[in-house]
């Protein structure tokens, strides 16, 4: 019966997680659920508590309150079982700089109890999979940021985890390396691995996640699929770019008076945008612009990006990382 246990349940299940660092409350009762074989995105601004949540779920931190289970195992009571089921790739690549790529992976294989030849074979297999075979014998110190991140990902896969925690796996990577890492994450998900992903890049969440939990100030402020969240901020976004940038202010004033909503002007792009809930407004906008003889470069209606959703939900942009929370953890 024991063996059936975690196939029937959610891969990750947390209720009412609380964590305090001194006087700061990093998590003030967070609930989240990750379904098996899916990618759960954990989003939130600077210091929202994303990293703290991941560290609790990966058994690195003890919560001050609440409960969390991974594959049905309690992260506190059954920490040893949880550790056999999860892989962790931290925000700061946690590979040993002083060892070669191969030896990093062999070390982890040996720690997980693989016999030496098996550990060696597993290392070679993972290095090939993450396109690191050529650099396998080199000290990690000589690796680029993208290579390190791939090795870190490989390191978290040595034990064939069922649940993978990726804490900002692409922070600081160039666009090419990011796309590489995305492809690798997709391949893992296709093999049935459940992923909990924190990220500051909303396009990344848009690309990779099935479900999203948004936290701010240690609390969950929204949950849903990316599409649900986009729908929630209400309607669509109208973007108007006049051919002559001199008309920008006039267009902005017109849109504001017609929609009654707040208009965002992007001078660099030479465009203004405004949320639109009532689509019958559109013909009027076009008519009024035509009446004034303003020629248009662009006139588009689109769904808001997750970035805009995020802004609407939290009142700030999703930039930077959880450096502050991390510092707090370290002072503890």
């Amino acid at each position, binding site marked *: 019966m024991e063996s059936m*246990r975690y196939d029937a349940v959610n891969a990750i299940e947390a209720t009412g997680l609380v964590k305090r660092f001194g006087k700061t409350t990093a998590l003030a009762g967070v609930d989240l659920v990750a379904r098996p074989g899916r990618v759960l995105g954990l989003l939130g601004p600077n210091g929202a508590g994303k990293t703290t949540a991941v560290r609790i779920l990966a058994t690195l931190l003890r919560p001050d309150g609440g409960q969390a289970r991974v594959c049905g195992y309690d992260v506190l009571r059954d920490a040893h079982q949880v*550790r056999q089921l999860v892989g*962790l790739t931290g925000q700061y690549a946690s590979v*040993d700089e002083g060892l070669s790529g191969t030896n990093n992976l062999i070390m982890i294989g*040996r720690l997980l109890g693989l016999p030496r030849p098996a550990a060696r074979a597993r290392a070679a297999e993972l290095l090939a999979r993450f396109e690191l075979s050529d650099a396998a014998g080199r000290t990690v110190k000589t690796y680029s940021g993208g290579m390190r991140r791939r090795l870190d990902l490989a*390191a978290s896969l040595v034990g*064939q985890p069922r649940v993978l925690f990726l804490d900002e796996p692409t922070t600081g990577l160039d666009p090419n390396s990011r796309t590489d890492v995305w492809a690798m994450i997709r391949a*893992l998900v296709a093999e049935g691995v459940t992923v909990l992903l924190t990220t500051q890049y909303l396009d990344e969440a848009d690309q990779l996640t099935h479900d999203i939990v948004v936290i701010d100030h240690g609390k969950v402020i929204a949950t849903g699929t990316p599409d649900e969240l986009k729908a929630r901020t209400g309607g669509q976004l109208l973007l108007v770019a006049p051919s002559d940038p001199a008309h920008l202010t006039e267009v902005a004033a017109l849109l504001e008076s017609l929609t009654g909503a707040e208009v965002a002007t992007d001078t660099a792009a030479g465009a203004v945008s405004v949320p639109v809930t009532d689509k019958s407004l559109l013909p009027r906008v076009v008519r009024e612009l035509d009446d004034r003889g303003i020629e248009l470069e662009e006139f588009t209606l689109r769904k808001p990006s997750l970035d805009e959703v995020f802004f609407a939900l939290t009142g700030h942009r999703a930039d930077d990382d959880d450096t502050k929370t991390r510092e707090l953890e370290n002072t503890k």
Partner: protein
Amino acid sequence: MTAFAETPAVQAPARRLGPGTGLRNTFTLTWRSVLKIKTNMEDVFGLSLQPIMYLVLFTYVFGGAISGGTHKYLQFSLPGILVLSVVFATLGTGLMLNQDITTGVFDRFRSLPIARWAPLAGAVLGDMVRYMISVAVTLGFGMILGFRIETTPLAAAAGCLLLLLFALAMCWFSALIGLLTKTPQGVQLFGFLGMFPLVFGSNLLVPTNTMPGWLQAFVKVNPITALTGAERGLLIGGPVGILAVRSLLWALGIFVVFAPLAVRVYRRKT
């Protein structure tokens, strides 16, 4: 393509660590520490150049003033420089632990189903190799400069063993500092602040009777004095028994105080 999800994953995870797993984990991590010595040339240079520098400087700068001749002084100072090199080498343990924590390597270890204490024990055991290098270089280069063992090879070997045992205790002090400080610079600073008075407030380089009375009182109870005395006895002859026993007792005392403290701080971080 690979065996990620295809493995018969319905096999339930083990409830606890199997017997012997902790030791096996420790040996794996010892292997890691030793490998790191090999790949880190700076460390190897530091370990071997420092004793050479101490030997050359102290012998030729102090030799004439203290003993009226460099050869005579070398016979007196080499056992002391052995102690000094090994004690300072223990700082490496703290540095490495500190580095593991700041780079996130420890987070990875802690996320693995291994014995909680294995990373600490592995680091300490791995460092024994570093201390051996330090001892071998000091003794070897000293002999090139003209140092002669005046006792038996067996006594000299016992001297080396005593040094290693003492280092095995001291490195827990270093480990504690490595766990408590935030940066490698902090480890260096607090490590030296702790070790300098011990190392130089002893008869390691200078005979005790040349110092003022209050200092002599400190020097006489300093564990480094006992250890240096025992090393002199074992390498160039003289009283050994009581000094060796005192060194061992000190080592035991340092271990008993600092090892549990380091483990406690480590666990609190875990």
